């Protein structure tokens, strides 16, 4: 109801053919559509160019601090896009504060983790014996990669490219800060038409075009068949040559440093004014009020996302009917296909008349956030639930456990970590959510991300610095959550009870 219904309402509003074709006939909108597409294509190529070597080194080789460096490369993915936008705007030289270049660089930064995770997960399962056999049969290193490694990774590279393109095509926060008024993207235009101009039908028409491009890209990059390699992750190779080990360590440390650099620079900027060191930007009362609002909304959104996400994931994992599994997977993936701003617009249009006039309700925002987080929760928990061997449950049943006991004693312990990871994702997504919040936030319930947006839209160094301090607070919260799950979860040990 909170995903499909708003989507259908947006689609029905755009059946107005004039608005739909106006996008193509209007040269400004056509240009905007073209810019959104080519910046997304370049961002995807750039992400692959950096992400693939990083995935290779981090998934295949063992070296000092590998685990920590790998965890650091995932930091940008949990950062709110508006924070990354502000970080890149502060880092860039004066003439490059906005425009295509900083936007593309920010997109690359945000999405490297997607490539490292998707392609790296597959690379970890690729037995080295394939490459070794090819090498012994005469293949030089590049031929070896071209004829063996690439074909076996192709589907995951194509899949990751599709997802990165979709994210770059529909990010709002980074585009709003970095694209600038000369280079609007489809997402910023949807917001402008809906919020500033009040032309809902034109905004809906843009949503439809956005949806069409995203669906086309996902259809082109979707690969059903993936050659089975191995279920288990293979032990990373230890390099025999010391200088090679050192090179891997240095290169991957550089990647990790680059991921942290924007945050560090943001922090120093937030405690520095023309008079020198100051904490005044961190002491604004609204900062902490907005932060508390964000935390409470994120908590409710996480609980909702976990409830709906776990239910959907279990329904997919435990179902034996492929058709039902596919239907559930498609439904829960909708919030990836339909962008956050479009979802917010759907909420505005769907819940504005009695008996569903909920536009001013406090709880609509956490629901919208949980809808945005839903696909991530489902995608993290479903494979983990599917990996539990049925024989384990059968054994427990034969040993006298009832179905509930089987679930709590077999499934749940195996799923604790994925559930915690999913919860941290949902919490971070809600904390930094900006697209849907921009359209749904009402007075008195301003989130931290919304506060950043408002501060940035007003001139003055003080307000800009307060926006930077707010961005730091968001970034630190997201990093703290990710690190807590990464390092605290392994400490939870099952206590033996006989």
């Amino acid at each position, binding site marked *: 109801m909170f995903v499909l219904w708003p989507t259908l309402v947006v689609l029905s509003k755009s059946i107005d053919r004039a608005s739909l074709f106006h996008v193509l006939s209007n040269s400004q909108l056509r240009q905007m559509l073209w810019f959104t597409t080519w910046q997304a294509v370049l961002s995807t190529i750039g992400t692959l160019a950096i992400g693939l070597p990083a995935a290779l080194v981090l998934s295949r080789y063992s070296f000092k601090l590998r685990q920590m460096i790998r965890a650091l490369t995932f930091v940008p993915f949990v950062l709110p896009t508006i924070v990354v936008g502000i970080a890149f705007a502060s880092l860039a030289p004066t003439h490059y504060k906005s425009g295509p270049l900083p936007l593309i660089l920010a997109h690359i930064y945000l999405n490297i983790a997607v490539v490292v995770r998707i392609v790296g997960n597959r690379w970890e399962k690729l*037995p080295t*014996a*394939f490459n*070794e*056999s*090819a*090498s*012994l*049969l*005469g*293949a*030089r290193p590049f*031929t*070896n990669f071209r*004829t*063996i490694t690439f*074909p*076996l990774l192709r589907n995951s590279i194509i899949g990751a490219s599709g997802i990165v393109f979709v994210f770059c095509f529909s990010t709002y926060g980074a585009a709003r800060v970095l694209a600038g008024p000369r280079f609007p993207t489809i997402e910023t235009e949807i917001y402008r038409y809906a919020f500033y101009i009040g032309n809902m039908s034109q905004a809906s028409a843009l949503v439809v075009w956005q949806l069409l491009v995203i669906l086309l890209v996902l259809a082109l990059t979707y690969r059903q068949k993936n*050659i*089975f*390699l191995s279920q288990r992750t293979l032990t990373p190779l*230890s*390099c*025999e*040559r*010391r200088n090679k*080990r050192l090179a891997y360590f240095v290169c991957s440390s550089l990647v990790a440093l680059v991921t942290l650099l924007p945050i560090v620079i943001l922090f120093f900027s937030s405690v520095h004014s023309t008079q020198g060191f100051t904490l005044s930007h961190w002491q604004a009362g609204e900062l902490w009020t907005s932060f508390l609002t964000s935390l409470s909304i994120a908590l409710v959104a996480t609980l909702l996302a976990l409830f709906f996400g776990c239910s959907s994931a279990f329904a997919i994992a435990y179902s034996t009917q492929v058709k039902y599994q596919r239907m559930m997977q498609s439904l829960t993936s909708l919030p990836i296909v339909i962008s956050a701003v479009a979802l917010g617009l759907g909420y505005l249009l769907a819940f504005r008349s009695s008996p569903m006039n909920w536009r001013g309700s406090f709880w609509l925002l956490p629901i919208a956030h949980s809808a945005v987080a839903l696909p991530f929760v489902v995608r993290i928990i479903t494979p983990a639930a599917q990996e539990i061997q049925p024989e384990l449950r059968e054994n427990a049943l034969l040993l006298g456990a009832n179905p509930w006991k089987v679930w709590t004693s077999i499934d749940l312990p195996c799923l604790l970590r994925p559930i915690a990871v999913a919860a941290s994702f949902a919490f971070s997504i809600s904390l930094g959510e900006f697209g849907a919040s921009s359209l749904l936030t009402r007075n008195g319930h301003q989130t931290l991300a919304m506060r950043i947006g408002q501060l940035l839209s007003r001139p003055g160094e003080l307000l800009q610095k307060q926006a930077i301090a707010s961005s730091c607070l968001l970034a630190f919260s997201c990093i703290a959550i990710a690190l807590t799950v990464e390092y605290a979860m392994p400490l939870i040990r099952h206590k033996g009870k006989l």
Partner: protein
Amino acid sequence: MTSPFLEISQLSFRVPGNALPIFDQLSLDVAEREIVAILGPSGSGKSSLLRTVCGLHSPSNGSITLRGTDITNSAPHQRNIGMVFQGTFLFPHLTVGENIAYGLKMKQFSKESRKQRVDEMLNLVHLANFSNRDVSHLSGGEAARVAIARALAPSPQILLLDEPLTGLDEQLRVDLAKDLREALTASHITSILVTHDRNEAAIIADRIVRFADLILPT
């Protein structure tokens, strides 16, 4: 006195960061066209020896000479040494024929000669008409035969076999061992087999040595 076809002299290998070597001061001579089986328990370092000979591991000491040429520091793809891995590891995205033709392609054989050689190899391992099969549809025995054919196809100077029949049932192992012996003799190829199965070694090899006997006593 003629020098041996393959001469492994005082070879040592240690995993980086480990104080103890996997094997130390190991020496072995193999004559041309000879099939030598190295017997030893699991974990003794037999596979590491083969990986060092073919260049997948770098030795910490010692030398390897093939036909009088020192290959100790050559890259694996320059050594012209074939290897059959434990677990076969056929390329899963290629058909049986494409797997066998892979090494021929790397040596830039023409399309016709590749096809001819693939058919020849498939006949040698008794799998004629398997060329277009998907490797995921092969049984364990068939996969082992294809792995042997793939390694033999580019006519390597020497073939290394790392427990190639592991995981197959007893009768199949005996049958395959006989076929393997036949294929190796027909190809006139110098080979080193490592195994922990004395029967398998007896069927395939001309000479059996114990791994422990190759290492210089300290």
